[in-house]
């Protein structure tokens, strides 16, 4: 149980941070109450984890040979990396921290499932690019539909609000399905938890993070996204949800923040406007390189410390 604490912390921080990518716009603009958003996203995160989290849990669980100690080290290293990056106010991705820490363990044990790793790296790069392309396609198609439907001003607003709630629920489902592997997959790999137990515990810890600590992040991140008009914000949330869900089906945990960056970039390209700050794009690269690097250094150090032996 002690080993699970760092995993639960990781899940909690994931929920606290990533729910903002889904419901941030709706909550910060006061279209949806925080409590409604938090309850809806918690329910859908747990549902996503249980119903579709299995594939991701298996991919991450089999990335390296794990036992209970290495699983604990891996979780703790990822949690430390996420905390350091958060304190330094750098963009952080839990998925990339977890994979980085597993690689660190793999380096020390001289065993990494390279095919799985290549798959993960390709998916990481594909996340913002995919979300960018998807947001352009969705915008073009749905804008035509929206302009053709004869709705009154307030009717249109209602559609936008309902759309943000529905896509938000779908986004939460996708978050649970995709990111639950970050939380408990290593314990499945170590044989400590079954897939179902890993999905349930992981999903619940993410939901707890959303319920207890996501309000402030939603306000901050949401205001960044809400600079877009409501329709664009809806497309961003929808593209994010589809992208993340797709990778959940493939079985690779990806960063929802990077999917959002990609989607916003897509809208910016379409409207020929600078919708994104350079810092956001740099954040994607930092997520690809700095996060796994820091996490792997942490796990190497922790592995080294726990395997020190006194020779008299």
């Amino acid at each position, binding site marked *: 149980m002690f080993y699970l604490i760092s995993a639960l912390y990781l899940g909690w921080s994931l929920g606290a941070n990533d729910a903002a990518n889904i419901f941030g716009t709706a909550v910060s*603009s*006061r*279209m*949806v*109450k925080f409590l409604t958003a938090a309850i809806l996203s918690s329910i859908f995160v747990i549902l996503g984890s249980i119903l579709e989290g299995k594939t991701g849990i298996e991919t991450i669980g089999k990335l390296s040979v794990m036992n209970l100690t290495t699983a604990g080290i891996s979780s703790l290293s990822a949690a430390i990396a996420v905390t350091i990056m958060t304190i330094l106010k750098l963009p952080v991705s839990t998925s990339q921290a977890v994979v980085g820490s597993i690689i660190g363990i793999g380096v020390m044990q001289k065993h990494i499932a390279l095919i799985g790793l290549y798959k993960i790296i390709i998916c990481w790069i594909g996340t913002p690019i995919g979300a960018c392309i998807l947001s352009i396609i969705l915008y073009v198609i749905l*804008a035509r539909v*929206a*302009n053709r439907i*004869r*709705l*009154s*001003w*307030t*009717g*249109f*607003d*209602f559609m*936008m*609000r*309902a759309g943000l709630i529905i896509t938000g629920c779908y986004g939460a489902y996708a978050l649970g399905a995709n990111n639950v592997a970050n939380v408990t997959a290593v314990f499945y790999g170590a044989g400590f938890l079954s897939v179902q137990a890993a999905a349930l515990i992981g999903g619940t810890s993410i939901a707890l993070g959303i319920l207890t600590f996501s309000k402030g992040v939603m306000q901050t991140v949401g205001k960044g996204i*809400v600079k877009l*008009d*409501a*329709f664009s914000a809806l497309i961003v949330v929808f593209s994010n949800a589809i992208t993340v869900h797709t990778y959940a089906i493939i079985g690779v945990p990806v960063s929802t923040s990077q999917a959002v960056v990609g989607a916003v970039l897509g809208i910016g390209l379409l409207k020929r406007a600078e919708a994104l700050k350079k810092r956001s794009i740099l954040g994607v690269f930092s997520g690809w390189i700095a996060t796994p690097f820091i996490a792997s250094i942490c796990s190497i150090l922790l592995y080294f410390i726990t395997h020190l032996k006194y020779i008299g």
Partner: protein
Amino acid sequence: MRLLDFFFRKQRLIEKEVFDYLQMWKKCLEYFKGAMEVYLVEGIGEKFDYYVQEVYKMEERADELRRKVEWEMYSKALIPESRGDILGFLETMDKIPNKAESLLNQIKLQKLEFPKELNQNLERIVALSCEAIQLVYEAATRLIRRNGGIHKLADKIDVKETECDHAEQDTIEKIFSMDIEKADMILLKEFIIELGNLSDRAEDVSDRLTILSVKRRV
């Protein structure tokens, strides 16, 4: 459908109140037109006073409705950009009945009397202004219903405003060629300029409505 109505109730309520406001706005300006017609035929009298009182009442009710919509808009019913847009829309619309009220006040308080030779000119300015205002009402209704066609109405309002400007200049020229006191000339000229401002305001509202209609497209 009933379920949809349940979720849609706040938006429907605001929509209804905006339409109520527009009805009151329209009535207010119809009474203004009535007051001006009575004034041109009978001058200041009981009938004129009745119309003026009705304008006051309608303007006050329109103000109340506007404040109600503004208050309810912030109860999480509309998306943020809509709140600002509707607020701006109502404030711009409100300038027209305010102007109408101020014109009638001017007539009443200054006991303005126009020479009969100017009746036709005044009738033309009032008619053109009221036509521009009627077009504004149509454009505003179309905007709320997202029916389109606002650009065409804006063009028509623009034409009315230009015609009104010409009528205003002709009238001022005529005033200064008449054999009346200089002070009366200035008083009448001031009123004609103020009356002409009504169509200018209609044009301002129409510009705002055009921008909003473009903004509402995705």
